[in-house]
């Protein structure tokens, strides 16, 4: 690990690397942006979190003082307050987070056209070809890191390596403006002793399965036989083996690249528990109307639908089914979701959060084979009805048109997943089928 590379015109490590890929990570992003905007928050233990009344009460990010008090990201506000009674909770301001993280990425875009976002706070930056213009890649990475700090007062930790996986791994090694270079020569000494779960795409379950195979470190993974891994994990196994051996060749996407949509989903943590099928149906109605509207907006139709429900004991259940034909109708989505609810066999209903997701997307109004007893006109009528409903809501607000049944318990259904809400979802790393390279 070359933690501190001597500053100079020529850098010997750059010569050794074929590609220079930087992974930058804004340290505890939300908390740091709040600290930048309100410096007085630096002197108190502070965390960004949702609102307890609406039951979004979890810690999204925390500052160093809160971290020292053992406050953890993802735990409930109540739990955090118990550990650290003086904890200041700041409500998230996603507008500001999106604005400032984009501004920081604009700095990267000054130096290269290959900047790939990985969530709000992380990005890969490929500066291989920028070296002709801006000089040595590692020096450039340092300059970018300094520029981000000087311009926005925000520290980013950077990992520089010859592939995306190791760059990400390196950026996680040192927090707080950390700067770690991993070359093709030294990755065996530096990275192989690390635990396997540090590798991208190795989660809790994979770690457990790997441990059963007596694979504990990245080095163990690299030394394992790819055939054995493939037997256990399928094509994922080979991919992980490639990652561990530094054979990842994936490119950093060009700016403006957008991943094709693979699924559309909406979920909701309700203000009070859902205790009957009728209530569940009403919440699902709002969700499926929003999903159908999003499908129509993107000119897509879906062929698979899955639901998940989370009980008050925080146990999650879910199942999915394939539809007989492609659809973009809320009524179809709702009917199928309710069939799935029946299949879940919930004995006692006490649900805290529920969601619907559709996938198997196909573009547009293609003409597919209907079955003999299908009423094509009815489908057309239903689509027009839903479109009118949607148009009314766009023009006059969501409350302008509602089902009478949703008024039975309006606190449950009083949300609008389509309108003003802005969901910031974490992204997955893999975008499509895994190719053997």
């Amino acid at each position, binding site marked *: 690990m070359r933690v501190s590379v001597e500053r100079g015109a020529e850098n010997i490590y750059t010569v050794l690397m074929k590609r220079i890929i930087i992974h930058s990570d804004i340290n505890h992003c939300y908390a740091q942006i709040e600290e*930048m*905007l*309100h*410096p*007085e928050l630096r002197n108190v233990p502070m965390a960004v979190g*949702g*609102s307890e009344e*609406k039951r*979004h009460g979890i810690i999204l990010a925390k500052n160093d003082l809160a971290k020292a008090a053992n406050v953890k990201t993802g735990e409930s506000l109540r739990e955090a307050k118990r550990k650290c009674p003086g904890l200041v909770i*700041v*409500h*998230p*301001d*996603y*507008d500001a987070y999106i*604005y*400032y993280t984009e501004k920081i990425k604009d700095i990267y875009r000054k130096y290269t056209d290959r900047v790939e976002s990985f969530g709000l706070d992380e990005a890969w930056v490929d500066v291989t070809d920028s070296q002709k213009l801006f000089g040595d890649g590692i020096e450039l990475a340092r300059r970018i890191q300094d520029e981000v700090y*000087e*311009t*926005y*007062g*925000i520290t980013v930790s950077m990992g520089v390596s010859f592939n995306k996986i190791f760059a990400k791994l390196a950026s996680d090694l040192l927090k707080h403006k950390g700067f770690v270079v991993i070359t093709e020569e030294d990755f065996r000494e530096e990275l192989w002793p690390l635990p396997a779960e540090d590798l991208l795409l190795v989660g809790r379950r994979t770690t457990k399965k790997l441990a059963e195979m007596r694979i504990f470190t990245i080095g163990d993974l690299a030394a394992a036989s790819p055939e054995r891994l493939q037997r256990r994990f399928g094509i994922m196994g080979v991919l992980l083996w490639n990652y561990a051996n530094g054979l990842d060749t994936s490119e950093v996407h060009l700016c403006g690249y957008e991943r094709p949509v693979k699924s559309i989903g909406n979920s909701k943590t309700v203000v009070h528990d859902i205790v009957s099928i009728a209530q569940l149906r009403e919440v699902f109605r709002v969700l499926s109307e929003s999903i159908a509207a999003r499908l129509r907006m993107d000119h897509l139709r879906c062929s698979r639908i899955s639901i998940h429900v989370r009980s008050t004991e925080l146990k999650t259940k879910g199942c999915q089914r394939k539809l007989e034909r492609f659809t973009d109708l809320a009524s179809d989505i709702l009917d199928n979701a309710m069939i799935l609810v029946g299949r879940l066999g919930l004995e006692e209903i006490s649900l805290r959060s529920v969601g619907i997701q559709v996938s198997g997307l196909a573009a547009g109004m293609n003409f597919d084979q209907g079955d003999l007893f299908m009423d094509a006109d009815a489908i057309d009528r239903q689509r027009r009805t839903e479109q009118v409903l949607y148009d009314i809501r766009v023009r006059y607000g969501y409350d302008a048109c509602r089902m009478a049944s949703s008024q039975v318990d309006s606190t449950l259904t009083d949300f609008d997943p389509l309108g*003003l*809400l*802005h*969901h*910031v979802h974490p992204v997955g790393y893999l975008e499509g089928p895994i190719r053997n390279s």
Partner: protein
Amino acid sequence: MVYKYYVDVITMIFQDGTLRPLFVQWEDHRYKVDKVISVREMFSKAGGCGICYLCRMQGQDRKLFWERNRWFLESEVFAPGHQEARTPPSTRGM
């Protein structure tokens, strides 16, 4: 200790979109910006960041920040009652 105060500024907007502060309004007084010494993007020690215009006003050098869509002035003088109240928590994304 540095404080920040959001202020009204009479600004010249040039054809290319660049800004030049002309007068800073503070209560009933209008202070002329005699000279813009430097312009660069940076963060303020008083919180926030944006394009920092180092201005000469009344014989003093002051930092005037263009933050997203408004101006604030950095000052070492504490003026009670002029601090901006923290914006109420956003309910977006909930």
